[in-house]
């Protein structure tokens, strides 16, 4: 049977020639989409509204400010999705951490102080409380998923419902306002650019974490093939708990930035943020089956969502239509992703 050595392709053919040409980062195509959409709104703006879409600093600022909160959440969600999981609890966790942290951020001058003895605290107190509450929620998600082996969808769905309940129960539904100047600075410092700075800082940090640390490699490995990851000696349970905890922590951070910016916390806030965050990741090329995706893609994905939202409003398109179109775009993003992966497989 060894007579048929010829004809078949040699076993190993990938060699030098290929080594030289580095493939373009997949983010480039998503960036092109972002540019395309922006240009489209620019043209439509001149056609139908009679003004520029992009040459308007305050509009740009509003877009990136809105994107920042979703973006911070989406970075954590991206890591969760790369492990092959999902986090549905982000929106509710935003509300819960916002409510809890807000009660530690009030000034004594405000008439409706929740804890009269705990006013005018340094801004790190509500910040730590908020981050801690978020991290705790994430930890519980991770613990449930790894120790009870229930699917991430269910664990985080439970957290989504419960966290929203806690947010309402905590102040009997009444909103909390009247923050200290220091705390409000989290959302307003640097001429109101502070949320963007925080977002970018988080993005850069986690970009490095995902690409240049073992933590990042493990995250990809678990999503790519949990069996292989286990055999490689990765403590999957421990790592997943860390990833979900970080996702919760970042959600807490996003909540702090959000309430500092809008200067009030409400139990109803953060509604559907989890879906926006997932959408940003998916549009940014993060594969829902795990193992694939990058922080940079998610950042661009969040920007695409923000630009679209702003663009529709700018073109005075009804909010109902906006949601319809947004839904369609998310689906199209996944179709494109599937198509790309299909092509990848065919090329073997």
């Amino acid at each position, binding site marked *: 049977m060894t007579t*048929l050595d010829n004809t*078949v392709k*040699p076993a190993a053919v*990938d060699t030098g020639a290929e080594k030289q040409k580095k493939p373009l980062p997949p983010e480039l195509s998503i960036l092109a989409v972002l540019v395309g959409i922006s240009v489209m709104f620019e043209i439509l703006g001149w056609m139908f509204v009679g003004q520029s879409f992009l040459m308007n600093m305050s509009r740009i600022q509003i877009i990136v400010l809105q994107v920042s909160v979703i973006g911070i959440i989406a970075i954590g969600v991206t890591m969760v999705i790369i492990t092959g999981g999902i986090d549905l609890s982000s929106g509710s966790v935003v509300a819960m951490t916002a409510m809890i942290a807000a009660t530690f951020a009030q000034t004594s001058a405000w008439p409706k102080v929740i804890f009269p003895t705990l006013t005018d605290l340094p801004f790190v107190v509500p910040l730590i409380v908020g981050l801690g509450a978020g991290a705790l929620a994430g930890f519980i998600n991770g613990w449930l998923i790894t120790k009870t082996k229930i699917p991430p969808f269910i664990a985080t769905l439970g957290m989504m419902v419960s966290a929203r309940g806690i947010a309402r129960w905590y102040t009997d539904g009444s909103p909390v306002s009247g923050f200290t100047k220091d705390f409000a600075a989290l959302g307003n410092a640097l001429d109101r650019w502070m949320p963007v700075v925080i977002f970018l800082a988080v993005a850069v940090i986690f970009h490095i974490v995902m690409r240049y640390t073992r933590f990042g*490699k493990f995250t990809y*490995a678990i999503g*790519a093939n949990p069996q292989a990851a286990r*055999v*490689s000696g990765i403590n999957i349970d421990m790592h997943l708990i860390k990833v979900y905890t970080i996702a919760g922590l970042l959600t807490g951070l996003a909540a702090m930035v959000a309430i500092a910016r809008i200067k009030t916390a409400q139990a109803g806030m953060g509604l559907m943020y989890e879906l926006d965050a997932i959408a940003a990741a998916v549009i940014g090329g993060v594969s829902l089956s795990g*193992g694939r995706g990058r922080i940079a893609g998610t950042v661009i994905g969040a920007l695409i969502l923000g630009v679209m939202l702003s663009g529709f409003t700018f073109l005075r398109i009804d909010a109902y239509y906006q949601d319809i179109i947004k839904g369609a775009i998310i689906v199209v993003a996944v179709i494109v992703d599937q198509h790309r992966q299909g092509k990848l497989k065919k090329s073997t």
Partner: protein
Amino acid sequence: MSSAAVVEAMPTSGVSPQAQSSEYVLEVVDVRKEFPGVLALDNVQLKIRPGTVHALMGENGAGKSTLMKVIAGIYQPDQGEVRLRGEPVTLETPLKAQESGVAMIHQELLLMNSMTVSENIWIRREPRNSFGLIDHDRMRGMTVELFDRLNIRLNPDAEISTLSVANRQMVEIAKAVSFNSDVLIMDEPTSAITETEVAHLFEIIRDLRKRGIGIVYITHKMNELFEIADEFSVFRDGKYIGTHLSSEVTRDDIIKMMVGREVSQMFPKEEVEIGDVLLSVKNLSLEGVFHDISFDVRKGEILGLAGLVGAGRSNVAETIFGVTPATSGQIFIEGEEVNIKNPHDAIRQGMAFLTEDRKETGCFLPLDIQENVQSAVLHDNYVNNGFVDHAALEKESAELCKKLRVKTPSMHEVIENLSGGNQQKVLIARWLLTHPRILILDEPTRGIDVGAKSEIHALISQLAHKGVAVIMISSELPEVLGMSDRVLVMHEGRCTGILDRDEADQVSVMSLAAK
């Protein structure tokens, strides 16, 4: 193929076991492992010398895989011990085993597909710079160095998902070597790669042997045993049967040890009366895949489809069965043209298709045997007024499984828990339940032990005897030659010839397949 010829054809292996130091690199002493209801390992022994290839032989379910998982730290033995270089060791985890010098290459290749070659090899051991960040350049360098040492030519930055199975295996081997392993376990490494790739693999195995690594090689293929193994150990029903030098035995001896009985005839081809043309395929093409395939199959005839991996044999089968409908050409059944747009149409025409990949396209792994057997008949037969006739179905499927000698405690056993051979029998039962006129078999005995193999061969012959037209695809040439009345040979999507039984032999088929 007579056994004598095989032994003669055996190349003299480079290193004889006796020439090595008598010290064993790996010893398994009286290991016992019990699972609920099954004694998987019954006080088994295994002794591996450094610098040898030691084959493990045994039918599916003999305990080879369990033993390997004990050695690789995946299972813990209930009793007995594992010794490495003479020292008793406890291998609590796969990682501990790797660090102690035991690496295992799993049959299903455990790699992270969306990650690069380098990332896969060095996972958890990535080189880091002074900031504690991963040094990708150095990692790439380490991979290149490792590949140079092993004479593997692969791009370290290639994503695993873009590599062929054979190349993925190379990555696994390189990873194993990178741990400076003393023992390398390979579980059926040639089950999914081409002949040339096998040759390359064997080169690398011989090279590893020269470096003094003890290689444990699990295989079902007898010719591989003679080609690459110095020694072999046989297991049967969880028991250790014995260890021999592969130069001192014949093929029949080994089969006897494995099955505990004589398997007189490997390919029990019955001479049956061949009837009228049942299936006729004319100029069938699937653009970009295969072109102008024409052939007839008669009642009671077995048509073998031979060719190298990638020649398009499976694609032809899939097209006839409606999985990927043809772009042009015609299919006739009993002289009438039929239009098969999907597998349902094909089943209604009395076709059955045993697919190549049991796990991917065959079994419903989490479902039990009962449900697996019944899945192909649910839309037509056995349904009264929209309700499934469970009683009749259960009775018939149980009878079929009994007839096919499926080894299982009950029909409600989840199919995932069965051995490969038994899974295959269940899938055959599924198709027999549809009472097919035309049976297409794609690699019906791949990864199946000798005993089950000959049972399946006998069954195919029986079906032909009953007038079923059989199309059989197989990469094992002896199987094609042994079973077929005629052999259709394909090369790069084209039919290069149809040979009658008396003109088909290894040389004639291969010269057409490898044009």
